[in-house]
């Protein structure tokens, strides 16, 4: 139990110390994030991969309102906790070639956000979940709005109001569930046990789904995303795409499916249709992008669309695929954004047509970039393959037409990603890229780590599958059982 509290609050302590660390903030925050990663690995080592919730903490917080500090880790949580604590040090290391103004605030906000994310991923109390949900949003808003690029104020205001609109309606749903709960608390098990009729489940489904759909983002709630990703500083983009969008996916799995299974049964088809529209739509737009960062942003919408479709397909394969793909997508997208950041820091542009021939002058960058791109397009032997394969089986089991359209994501993805790679890295060097220098120092460290992860998880994904299998199975059984009693 102490381990979990330490895990959640270590980044917060780190954030406070970093805030006062002045010029050495970079180092201090790196140390804290690495210690957090080690801690997460220790917890993962002690974690027994069955369906139970482990390391549980349940402390009274605001007793009069039935609010407890109730958190714990099961297989599903373990995976996203690992992802978070793995990516944060990578993201901090990736900032070493930048000199941000006021670094103490920058790194403190990253660690503060990590604390909020960990709360979201471990909370077993709906109120705590909501607090974490918002606590992760405030720092990223400031990160993007202070250190971001052109037109950042307007873009981030849109992002902020979008997300908070969704979450306020989710709060309304949470209050409703609380009032329905005879024990008058926010405990997740009590919420699971509620007997709501299908009309109630219907509107609660929408109250939660919109909040999660905005976060992921699922079509048509995605309009904030490309602008925000483009305008944010690279580390902000990585946090948003690598970890934050997993909050939405995790929310669907942890809260939406088990609490309102009948709502999902009635409305899930619309969710799948929206996800699939998103896949095709985002892929088509990605084709036409001239800016590599925007291209990756749209490809992210397409990938998340597939994950979302896999979850709402609601079977073992789809769900397991979503698990693996959450991890893979997090790693790959952070890698992609980092490569683009490296290119931008050298030649001050991410316009695809202005680049070319970088592979000739920077072979190591070209190799690592290639591995990451192949991971993203789900080549067999990379981490992306396992996830997308399972997801497609899941969607296929739901409906063959759905799988046929969703499968386009792999073909489309391969086309626009490889074409982007070709235009950026291959061909002849031009006046801009002739002076390009290869990766060095922390850049090497980060990119080789990411590539190693891509290949290791691609060749040997069993530990990850094993980690989540029991929990996913338990979840599905629980939901199906509840669904049968309702019908």
């Amino acid at each position, binding site marked *: 139990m102490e381990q979990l509290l330490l895990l959640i609050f270590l980044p917060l302590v780190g954030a406070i110390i970093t805030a006062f660390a002045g010029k050495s903030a970079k180092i201090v925050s790196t140390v804290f994030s690495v210690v957090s990663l080690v801690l997460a690995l220790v917890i993962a080592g002690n974690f027994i991969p069955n369906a139970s919730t482990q390391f549980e903490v349940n402390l009274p917080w605001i007793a009069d309102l039935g609010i407890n500090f109730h958190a714990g880790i099961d297989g599903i949580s373990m995976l996203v906790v690992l992802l978070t604590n793995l990516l944060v040090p990578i993201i901090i290391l990736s900032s070493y070639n930048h000199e941000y103004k006021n670094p103490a605030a920058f790194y403190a906000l990253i660690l503060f956000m990590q604390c909020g994310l960990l709360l979201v991923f471990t909370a077993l109390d709906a109120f705590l979940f909501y607090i974490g949900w918002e*606590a992760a949003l405030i720092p990223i808003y400031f990160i993007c709005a202070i250190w971001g690029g052109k037109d950042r104020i307007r873009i981030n*205001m849109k992002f902020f109001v979008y997300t908070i609109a969704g979450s306020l309606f989710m709060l309304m749903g949470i209050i409703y569930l609380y009032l329905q709960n005879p024990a008058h608390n926010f405990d997740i098990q009590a919420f699971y046990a509620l007997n709501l009729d299908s009309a109630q489940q219907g509107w609660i489904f929408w109250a939660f789904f919109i909040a999660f759909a905005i976060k992921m983002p699922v079509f048509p709630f995605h309009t904030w995303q490309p602008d925000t990703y483009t305008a944010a500083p690279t580390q902000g983009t990585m946090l948003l795409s690598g970890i934050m969008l997993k909050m939405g996916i995790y929310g669907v799995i942890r809260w939406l499916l088990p609490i309102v299974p009948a709502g999902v049964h009635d409305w899930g088809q619309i969710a799948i249709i929206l996800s699939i529209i998103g896949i095709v739509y985002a892929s088509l737009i990605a084709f036409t992008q001239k800016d590599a960062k925007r291209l990756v942003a749209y490809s992210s919408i397409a990938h998340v669309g597939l994950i979302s479709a896999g979850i709402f397909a609601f079977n073992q394969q789809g769900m397991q695929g979503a698990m693996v793909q959450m991890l893979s997508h997090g790693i790959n997208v952070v890698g992609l954004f980092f490569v683009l950041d490296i290119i931008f820091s050298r030649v001050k542009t991410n316009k695809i047509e202005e680049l070319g021939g970088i592979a000739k002058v920077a072979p190591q960058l070209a190799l690592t970039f290639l591995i990451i791109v192949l991971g993203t397009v789900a080549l067999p032997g990379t981490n992306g393959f396992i996830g997308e394969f399972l997801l497609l089986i899941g969607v296929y089991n739901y409906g063959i037409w759905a799988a046929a359209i969703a499968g386009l994501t792999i073909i489309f993805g391969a086309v626009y990603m490889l074409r982007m790679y070709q235009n950026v890295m291959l061909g002849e060097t031009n006046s801009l890229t002739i002076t390009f220098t290869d990766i060095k120092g922390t850049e090497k460290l980060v990119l080789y780590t990411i590539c190693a992860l891509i290949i290791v998880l691609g060749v040997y994904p069993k530990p990850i599958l094993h980690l989540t299998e029991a929990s996913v199975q338990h979840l599905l059984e629980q939901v199906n059982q509840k669904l049968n009693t309702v019908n």
Partner: protein
Amino acid sequence: MNIIITISITAFIVLYAGLFKANKALLPLTVVGLLTALGFTFCAWNGNAVHFGMMQTDNFALAFSGICIIGTLLIFLLTQNYFHAKSDNIAEYYTLILFALAGMIMMVSYKNMAMLFVGLEIMSVSLYILAGIRKKDFASNEASLKYFLMGAFSTGFLLFGITLIYGATGSFDLDKIQAYLVNSQTISPIFYPGVILMMIGLSFKVGAAPFHFWTPDVYEGAPSLITTFMSTVVKTAGFAAFLRLFAGALAPLHDFWVAPLMVIVCLTLFIGNVTALFQKNFKRMLAYSSISHAGYLLFSLIVLTKNSENNVLVYAAAYTFASIIAFAVLILVKQKTGSDSFESFNGLAKRNPLIALCLTVAMLSLAGIPLTAGFIGKYLMFLNVMTEYKTLLVAFAILNALVGFYYYFRVIVAMWFKDGAETELSAPAQYKVVLLVSVAITLILGIYPAIILNLI
């Protein structure tokens, strides 16, 4: 009773100290007096004493008295160098504010409607003078006159309402009025218009729409420190008076007065938020946002539960301390730049990060972001209304809260993301104390609200 006596005596001592030009002694005297009054508030806790059938110092009254006294104390600390620059007779300020506070203590603890009227008038008359205390300033005069005319008008409504209720029940006593509502077979037809008239009168005083038209002009015209006082402490006392009557004595008639109240709440939320959105001036924005907060404060009365009163207490506390921060920073910025437009906040984070951070916490609290007191306040309001599943009403309030984010974040954006004049902005020590105390209260109430949840 001790509380009112202490405050009144302090007021007189301060007045005489002013007569003998002991200007340096004014603030210490006032602080000691207020701390003594605060001590009496704590001592009387759980006492539930009735004083001559006129006032009842139950925990409701004491809790609201406590907030009013602490709020006034913080505002007094902001007077450093403020009044001296404006007038020679600074003892007047101190005395008038203290008299107003004494009136407010009556308003939060009345048991007899005569006391409500007396308390309200003591408070209002002091405020009419305070609003116009910058004698040669046109805006200040306009504020005073507007406030006086509107205030007198609303007092008329209130008195008329009291009279009708007296006519129906034969008593000014709250308990007797409640007993009348519970016991009598038929309620006299003149009772109902009495209730409505009192609601209108009190809505004027707390600045709820559609009786809010005086608020922006008066808040803008009055000296900033007086505006702080009016929009925080005075408002809190007004709501306590509202609550004591409607959630207490008139609770049996809830079905009757909830409909007009709902209209007032919706209008207040909508008008307050939407108009605040279009303000170019920070002070005027705060005036309109105070209207919208009046809407949230009344929100809790739409569904009467055993927690309604406490919810208002939490919200009032959250609102009061956040507003004090906002106004304190406004005063500092205005002294430096001479303007209270949003532009004058540009780049404040560079000029003084501490002040910018405090104001950010205040704005997040007013907007209702988790881990601040403002969120707990809003959450309790929504929870309260959701107990009767009035989802549409809550959805309406949520939409309004979203509008709120825009204008509160405008200040945050100006402070952190825009570049402004690079001149250093320093805060006097007393201002720092006020800012840090208010921020601490805002965060403590936001993270661990259990300490204030079951006070009443």
